[in-house]
């Protein structure tokens, strides 16, 4: 019997309309766990580097995490993997909500799509019955609307639906896949779904998920619940409210937006508005939120309720979480009322809340600066808010200038030329980032931004405080019950970290410490992404209930795979390296590992080079960011090493040198 996982994948050939149920290899689970890990293995095996994002050979994989569907609290992530139309690298966006557990209860761990359907279809998975069905009546429908129609039509109110809106259908490069309360937004995976002619996947399951050692597993779950209660009663003192507790940033609950609105950039990630958050604004925005928010809501099997149902007067209800609350308001220099209104439309269209407002603000910046002209925006309204609605519509319909902007700031700038490139200033690897511009280089964030292949800082950072507490005694106090550290040395790193003086950024944490910290942070995110655990209870917040010490036990007791900290660390390193290798094979190199030029005012090129050198070394990558033959072999990734040599990415000579040095 298979434990925690079902042992089956669905293989869907959209070109032929073929559905197949395949048994998976338990050895792969042991090596790559599940979710992102096994998704990546499939991508490596089946998607060679010549494959373009919109080619039928590109795969679109919906993978439930290894522990999704078990009673492990907050374990509900679907990891969606494909080649991003924007970065042309591997995208692996995740969504919470209810979809992944439902897929497991239906009897599958993953749905792997290949090919392209000649007409718009949706997939209906009802336990053993799996059908590709006509979706022509859903063309142009909103993502939430689509889910509603399908549940009604199939008479399955309990079915879970992941759907795209018009943005995905029209292959907007930052289109999302929406699933009621949650969405997989980054990397433009919705565009790939649209390109494949797939409007939605509906799933309903009523089967069992088995546990290997039930009573041990339940004891672990109960410990997690107890710890959540303790953390809820004891928020971390000295950090801002959204970082004090657990969960995804509690944007729906918290009204105080001083920190975001005064520290993050407005417009096309341009303007910092110190002093913005006045009493008057606070009152107005609180009122807006209170009126709009019907209820705080959770994902499957989680008490944290990070999301909310939002009903803006006169508009259909939708659901939201996190920072999208503010991105549209800030992108347009407007207010929360506008932000929540336009987000309703953007959610139905199925768009990424990070990229979209920046792309629109970028378009208007080009107009203001004469790079685009009035003729490019025919019949655009005069008022600011109206312009954003206008642009949103043009983009999802790919009309006129919208067709260019639909490719994101990087590609749009290239196409427009005439100096437009300078305005696409907030990208990493061609992908729009959080609108944040700071003064002094932070070595930890430098490394995370530069090397994080998830392309989104919130999915890489966490665990380690973002800044030192002003007083040493506070830092010592913080360390007292810091059980999550993988090694005691991290406590010392933190205790010695000062706001000013010798032990402050950019030279402290030292290069070596920085590498350790970033490696730990990244490792925890990668483990989450394989297990399907929400980062909000694990890798993101300070002092989370899941950590490197209890995770191996969860995996042993749940999936019946013998596991300890070392083996788990090695597994995470294995598929993390495989993600890297996949992207290296697609041409990514050291030159691509860099934050936006203007992310910090004060840069330190030598230190930055040193940081990259040291981090690559720790990761087992050579100076160009390519995993070395030796490190690949150590991880059991010999097939990658062979492929690299065959393709001339690594040469035997180069590797001999590496081996000599380390011998």
């Amino acid at each position: 019997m298979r434990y925690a996982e079902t042992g089956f994948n669905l293989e869907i050939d959209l070109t032929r309309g073929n559905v197949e149920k395949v048994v998976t290899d338990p050895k792969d689970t042991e090596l790559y766990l599940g979710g992102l890990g096994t998704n990546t293995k499939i991508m490596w095996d089946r998607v060679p580097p010549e494959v373009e994002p919109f080619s039928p050979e590109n795969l679109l994989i919906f993978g439930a995490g290894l522990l999704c569907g078990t009673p492990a609290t907050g374990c509900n992530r679907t990891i969606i993997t494909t080649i991003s139309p924007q970065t042309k690298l591997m995208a692996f966006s995740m969504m919470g909500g209810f979809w992944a557990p439902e897929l497991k209860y239906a009897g599958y761990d993953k749905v792997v799509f290949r090919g392209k359907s000649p007409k718009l279809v949706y997939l209906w998975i009802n336990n053993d019955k799996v059908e590709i069905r006509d979706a022509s009546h859903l063309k142009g429908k909103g993502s939430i609307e689509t889910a509603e129609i399908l549940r009604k039509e199939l008479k399955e109110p309990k079915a879970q639906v992941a759907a795209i809106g018009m943005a995905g259908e029209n292959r907007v490069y930052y289109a999302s896949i929406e699933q009621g309360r949650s969405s997989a937004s980054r990397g433009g995976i919705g565009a790939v779904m649209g390109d494949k002619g797939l409007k939605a996947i509906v799933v309903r399951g009523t089967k069992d998920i088995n546990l290997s050692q039930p009573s041990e597993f339940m004891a672990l779950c109960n410990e997690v619940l107890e710890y959540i209660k303790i953390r809820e009663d004891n928020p971390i003192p000295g950090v801002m409210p959204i970082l004090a507790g657990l969960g995804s940033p509690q944007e729906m609950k918290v009204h105080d937006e001083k920190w975001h609105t005064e520290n993050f950039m407005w417009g096309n990630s341009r303007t910092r508005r110190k002093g913005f958050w006045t009493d008057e604004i606070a009152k107005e925005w609180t009122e807006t939120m209170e009126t709009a928010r019907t209820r705080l809501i959770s994902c499957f099997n989680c008490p944290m309720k990070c999301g909310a149902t939002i009903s803006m007067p006169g508009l259909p209800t939708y659901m939201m979480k996190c920072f999208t609350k503010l991105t549209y308001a800030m992108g347009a220099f407007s207010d929360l009322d506008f932000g929540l209104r336009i987000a309703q439309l953007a959610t139905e269209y199925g768009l990424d809340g990070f990229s979209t407002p920046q792309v629109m603000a970028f378009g208007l910046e080009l107009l203001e600066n004469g790079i685009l002209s009035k003729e490019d925006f025919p019949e655009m309204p005069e008022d600011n808010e109206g312009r954003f609605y206008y642009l949103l519509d043009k983009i999802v319909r790919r009309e006129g200038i919208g067709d260019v902007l639909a490719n994101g700031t990087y590609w749009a700038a290239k196409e427009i030329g005439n100096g437009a490139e300078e305005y696409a200033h907030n990208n990493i690897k061609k992908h729009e980032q959080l609108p944040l511009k700071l003064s002094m280089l932070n070595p930890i964030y430098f490394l995370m931004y530069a090397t994080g292949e998830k392309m989104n800082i919130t999915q890489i950072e966490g665990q380690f405080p973002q800044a030192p507490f002003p007083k040493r005694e506070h830092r010592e106090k913080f360390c007292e019950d810091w059980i999550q550290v993988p090694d005691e040395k991290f406590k010392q790193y933190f205790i010695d970290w000062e706001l000013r003086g010798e032990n402050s950024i950019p030279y402290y944490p030292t290069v070596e410490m920085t590498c350790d910290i970033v490696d730990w942070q990244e490792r925890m995110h990668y483990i989450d992404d394989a297990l399907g655990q929400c980062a909000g209870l694990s890798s993101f917040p300070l002092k989370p209930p899941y950590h490197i010490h209890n995770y191996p036990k969860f995996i042993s007791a749940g999936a019946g795979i013998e596991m300890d900290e070392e083996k788990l660390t090695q597994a995470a390193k294995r598929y993390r390296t495989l993600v890297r290798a996949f992207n290296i094979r697609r041409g990514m190199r050291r030159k691509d590992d860099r934050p936006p030029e203007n992310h910090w005012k004060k840069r330190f090129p030598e230190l930055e080079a040193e940081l990259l050198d040291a981090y690559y070394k720790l990761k087992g990558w050579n100076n160009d960011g390519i995993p070395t033959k030796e490190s690949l072999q150590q991880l059991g990734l010999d097939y990658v090493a062979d492929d690299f040599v065959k393709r001339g990415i690594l040469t035997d000579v180069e590797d001999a040198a590496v081996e000599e040095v380390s011998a």
Partner: protein
Amino acid sequence: MKGDKKKKTIKTIKIDVDKCNGCRACEVICSSFHAAPKYSSNNPARSRIRVIRDPLRDVYVPVYAGEYTVAECAGRDKYTIDGKEYDECSFCRASCPSRDDFKEPDSGLPLKCDMCEGEDEPLCVKWCLVDALQVEEREEEVEEGEEQEELETGLESLADKYGMDKIKDAITRLSQKD
């Protein structure tokens, strides 16, 4: 003869729909507890509590599985409470032919909440960290012999419906089966 009065603790679960966030942790733990062997598997479709959930209409109703009924009810009404529309079935605890809820998904056998027999507290309550479910205990005086009385009332109504002979036949048949 009427019996003496006896004290009995009645455990009820108080449901606060306003606190429910729709997470279905209650369904997870219930189905897990009732798996055989205990906790060896889980499957919300086997749970004895169901969250009737319709987020866009803000409907969140955790319902506990009650009695099994052979026939579905005749008329089904809709309720509007605080401007939200509910199907009557949203509040119904019956395991009944008209829906899949409260039935084992494979065998179709009815499910009923047993207040987690053998546990100190109902586990759905324990796992609902947001307190949408809470146990309330109260003492009630009951007359001994009440159950006997209930049984007789039940039998009488059956006899009215089917005739005493048929009931006798049925009882004989059922007791032979055991």
